[in-house]
């Protein structure tokens, strides 16, 4: 009987704490282990995106050529609960290859050096001046500062092949698109 009463007490405490959490939880702004006079505030925003593509093969490219995906080839859908910024960066400064690998440049193609651009006109059917370089070195360029909730953002990639190259093998790199809550 004693054990039963003790168990009841424990459950009563658990139920009370759960109720208090349910009532006051949504308004909490600070967490434990934070210095007493420091404030920590976070509002309930979700950041979520889906990407229509994960791979692309530019095929065989000639020296000094520019090869584009179609504009709008890559579609991101903003499933976040907030408007978002989309920035773009190159993940490696050297392309992976069974050969020496091309070098990535943030500004221009060169000898054994490729560059990459992304379209920032949100899907206008043809490539135009609305492009940004895909950079390896921060700060990175952004495609859009405020993409609305539920909206698609359409972009594409443009490869600026080296002016000349000794590595004719397949060269690979990864472009990262980062999604953040807009200011």
């Amino acid at each position: 009987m004693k054990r039963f009463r003790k168990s009841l007490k424990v459950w009563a405490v658990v139920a009370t704490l759960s109720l208090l959490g349910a009532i006051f939880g949504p308004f909490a702004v600070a967490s434990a282990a934070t210095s007493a006079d420091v404030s920590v505030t976070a509002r309930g925003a979700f950041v979520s995106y889906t990407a229509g593509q994960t791979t692309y093969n530019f095929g065989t490219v000639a020296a000094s050529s520019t090869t584009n995906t179609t504009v709008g080839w890559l579609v991101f859908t903003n499933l976040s609960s907030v408007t978002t910024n989309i920035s773009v960066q190159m993940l490696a400064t050297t392309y992976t290859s069974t050969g020496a690998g091309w070098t990535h440049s943030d500004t221009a193609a060169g000898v054994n050096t490729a560059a990459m651009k992304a379209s920032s006109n949100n899907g206008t059917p043809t490539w135009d001046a609305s492009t940004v370089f895909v950079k390896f070195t921060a700060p990175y360029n952004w495609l859009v500062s405020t993409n609305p909730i539920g909206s698609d953002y359409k972009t594409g990639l443009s490869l600026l092949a080296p002016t000349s190259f000794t590595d004719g093998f397949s060269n690979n790199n990864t472009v990262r698109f980062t999604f953040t809550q807009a200011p």
Partner: protein
Amino acid sequence: MIKRLILTGLLVLLTGCSNGYTYEGNTTTPAASVETKSPTTTKPSSPTTKLIDTEKRPPETTTWISPGKVLIGNFYRGAEAEYPITIHNGGTTGTDTKKVTTDPGETEADISLNSLLSRNSLKSIDRLSSDNSKDTLVPVSYNPDTGLKIRGFSPADTRVLVMQYQADTKFTIEVKPPDWADQAYVDEIKEVVDWIIIVDPTPVLAPLETREIMVQIKMPFNSKITMKQLEFWTVVVSDQKGQVQVALATRWIITMRG
């Protein structure tokens, strides 16, 4: 041993092979089921953070993070602050297609999986199919390092094997300077990055699991930073393959005291 194991493509659909063999998960008890444990185990889903507005929650089958922005105020040398970021794994299934050739007398082989088998459990295998009608495939055991051991191959033969399974997702949480904040924030950011501790920087989440990961900020007493406001990002990426990578970031904005 397997002579050749060739990745034939990610999206080859062979579900209509009329002369093949198909193992349906959970309909046959494996002959010798041995589950292995990975060094990284997944925790049960933890309650989602109290601050989340559930009405705006993205679909369950999409990956999301929360919150989008954390404001830390009245910060100073020697101060500490912490707050959890919540990660939801919207990934559910993996489908691998491989061409497998067996040696004479060989009926069993370890087949590597492109993703992590959820919970390291054979119960996470939804389907095994072969286009070779002489195969009677049964999964035997799983080890993250060596892959899925399958029994019942026809020896000295070849087939295209399709494996569908519930896949865990490994995430990586990085701390980095902001991509597009005011340049004044970036100059001294390397020091700020050193203040940050991610309690679990490479969590492995089961399909549809939601988990909180604590982020701690401790400003050293001897810091020489003089800026009034600092910003850094925590960036969450999954172990996705390909030339396009999606990264979801939380902005952390620190306002100093005085």
